[in-house]
C-alpha cells in the first residue's frame, strides 16, 4: 500500500475514490478484488462510474472490470442500507431450523433476501456458511458474527442496532 488518504478526502473526492484506492495498491491489476472491497467499504457500493476509472488505472479492459464486479456475490452495484445482515442458509444452519429463521426474518423486516428495508436501515443478504456451524443458525450483523440465533434473539439484535 502506498499513499494513505483519510475517509474525508475520499468523500470530498468521491468520483475519484476509485483511482485513489487503486493507487494504494500500486495500480496492480491482480489487486482488483482488494480494490473493489475497499471501494465498497468506503463508498458503500461499487458505483457504475468507477468501473471505467478502475479499468484505466489498472490498464485492463472495461469488460474485465465489469466481469469481475458481476461475478462475485459480495460486490453491490447499488448502495446498501445503513446495516447489512447476512444470514447463513447453508446445511448446518438448515439443520437447526435456519430456514424457518430466514422466513421469520423476511417477515419481520418486510423484505426478501437481497432487498433493503423501506426505512433504509437494513439490507438483508444470504450467505452460505460463516464457519459458525457448531453454533447454528448463524449470521453476520455488519461485520459481527452471531450464533444460535432465534427469531427472538434477532429482534433484540435489531433493537440494539443504532438506527
Amino acid at each position: 500500500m502506498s499513499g494513505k488518504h483519510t475517509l474525508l478526502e475520499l468523500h470530498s473526492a468521491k468520483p475519484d475514490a476509485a483511482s485513489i484506492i487503486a493507487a494504494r495498491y500500486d495500480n496492480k491489476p491482480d489487486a482488483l478484488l482488494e480494490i473493489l472491497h475497499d471501494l465498497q467499504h468506503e463508498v458503500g457500493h461499487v458505483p457504475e462510474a468507477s468501473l471505467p476509472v478502475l479499468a484505466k488505472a489498472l490498464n485492463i479492459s472495461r469488460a474485465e472490470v465489469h466481469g469481475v464486479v458481476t461475478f462475485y456475490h459480495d460486490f453491490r452495484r447499488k448502495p446498501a442500507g445503513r446495516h447489512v445482515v447476512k444470514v447463513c442458509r447453508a446445511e448446518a444452519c438448515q439443520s437447526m431450523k435456519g430456514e424457518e429463521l430466514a422466513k421469520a426474518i423476511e417477515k419481520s423486516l418486510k423484505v426478501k433476501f437481497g432487498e433493503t428495508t423501506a426505512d433504509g436501515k437494513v439490507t438483508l443478504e444470504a450467505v452460505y456458511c460463516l464457519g459458525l456451524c457448531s453454533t447454528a443458525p448463524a449470521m453476520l450483523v455488519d461485520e459481527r458474527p452471531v450464533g444460535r440465533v432465534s427469531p427472538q434473539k434477532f429482534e433484540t439484535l435489531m433493537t440494539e442496532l443504532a438506527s
Partner: protein
Amino acid sequence: MAYGPVEASDAASLFAAKFHEGGAHKLSLGLTEDIPFLKNQERLTFARCGITDPLSLEDYMKLGGFAGLKKALTMTGAAIVAEVSNSGLRGRGGAGFPTGIKWKTVHDVKADQKYVCCNADEGDSGTFADRMVMEGDPFMLIEGMVIAGVAGGATKGFIYIRSEYPDAINTMKDAIRIATAAKWLGQHIQGTEHSFSLEVRRGAGAYICGEETAMLDSLEGKRGMVRPKPPIPALQGLFGKPTIINNVLSFAAVPYILAEGGEAYKNYGMGRSRGTLPFQLAGNIKQGGLVEKAFGITLRQLIEDFGGGTATGKPLRAVQVGGPLGSYIPISQLDMPMDYETFAAASAMVGHGGVVVFDDSVDMAAQARFAMEFCAIESCGKCTPCRIGSTRGVEVIDRIVAGESREKNLLLLDDLCQTMIDGSLCAMGGLTPMPVQSAVRFWPEDFDRPMKVAAE
C-alpha cells in the same frame, strides 16, 4: 475452570459467582483439561489453540512454535520434502492428494519465481477448522507456509481468505506484521539466506474460488473460472509460475512434522490416511465444535461420544460429511471409520472433515433440492451440465415431490446426475450428484410425500 455456553446476558451472574476465581455457577464445566470432549482428543495441530494468546510470539514459542521452521532452515529443500512425504500427509482441503508429491514437483522444477498459496476459502458448510487456526494460532499457518517456501524455493506467498471471515482476516494481517518485524518473514529470515514474504487476499463470496485453479484466477484479480488441467498448478500456477497450493490445515500440520519428524506423525491414523484430522461437529449436535483425532475414529464415536447426540434430543436421521458436495450418510453406516478410502468405497467423502448432523425433522428431498440449487448459484458457468443441469435438477426434484410422473422423473434425475458427473470439469458439477443421489438412495420415502413439501 471453564464455563459455557455463555451469552452476554450471563456476564453479571458469572461475575457475581466470581468465575475468575473458579466460583460455582450453573454454566460451570469444571476444569478445562478434564472436560472429556477436550481430554479425549489427539491434538497435534491444535495443541496450542485456545491456550495461547493468538498474537503473542512469546506464547507461541514457549509452546514449541517455530521449532519446525528452525529445523527446516538448516535443511535442504529436498530433505524437507522427504520429511513431509514420509509423514504420509495428504491434502486436508478435500481431495486428499499427497502433500509431499506436490511439494516435490515444485522443488524439482526450475523457475525465476515460485509461489506458495494457502487456500483459506473454507466454503464448505460444516467446516470451521481453518478459521480456528487463523484466529487461534495464526503463527502456525505462517510457519507452515514459510517451511513450504523454503522447501520449494518460493519467496512469495498469498493467503486467500474468504470475506465471510472478517476476524480471521484481521488476525492473519496482524500476525504477518508481527512475524515480519521479528524476522520470521521477509528478507533473510532469522539471518539465513532464505526470504519469504506473505500477503493476505480477500475472497468475495464465491464458493467456486475454493477450487484451486479458480482461486488462482481470483488471486490474479479475475473472475474465478476453473482452469483445465494440465497444466497442473505445481508447474504453471499463479501468474503461470510453479505454485504450491495447500489448504490451511495441510500447512498447519507441517510445523509438527518438521519438529517431531514425519515418523511421529505417521504413527497416527489408519491405512493410507495418516496423522490426525480436525473433525468439525456441526449442525444439530448437542456438543458441537472441533475434535482433532487420528483417522480411523468412527462417525458414531464422533457424534455420540464427543457430540452427545442431537441438540434437539430427537433421533438422528442423516449426516452430511465433507461439505455441500459430500454424501448424506444414513444411520446404518455410522460405524464406518473416518478414512479416505473407506469413505470413497461407500460413495462418500471425508473431505475437509465437516460433519453436519440432522435429526428426524429433516426433509431429504429438500436437502437434495438445495444441493442442486447451491450448484446453480455457485457454478462458475464454464460447463453446461453444471450450469444448466443443476437448474434442471431443481425443477425435476420439484416435479418428483409434487408427484408428477414420479418414476419417469426419478430416472431423469439419475440421467441428469450422470451427465453432470461425466461432463463437468471440476468437482462442483462432478460431485453435486453425491448428496442428491445418496438422498434418493437412502431416503426414498421423502421423495414420495407430495403434501408435506407442497405445503412448504
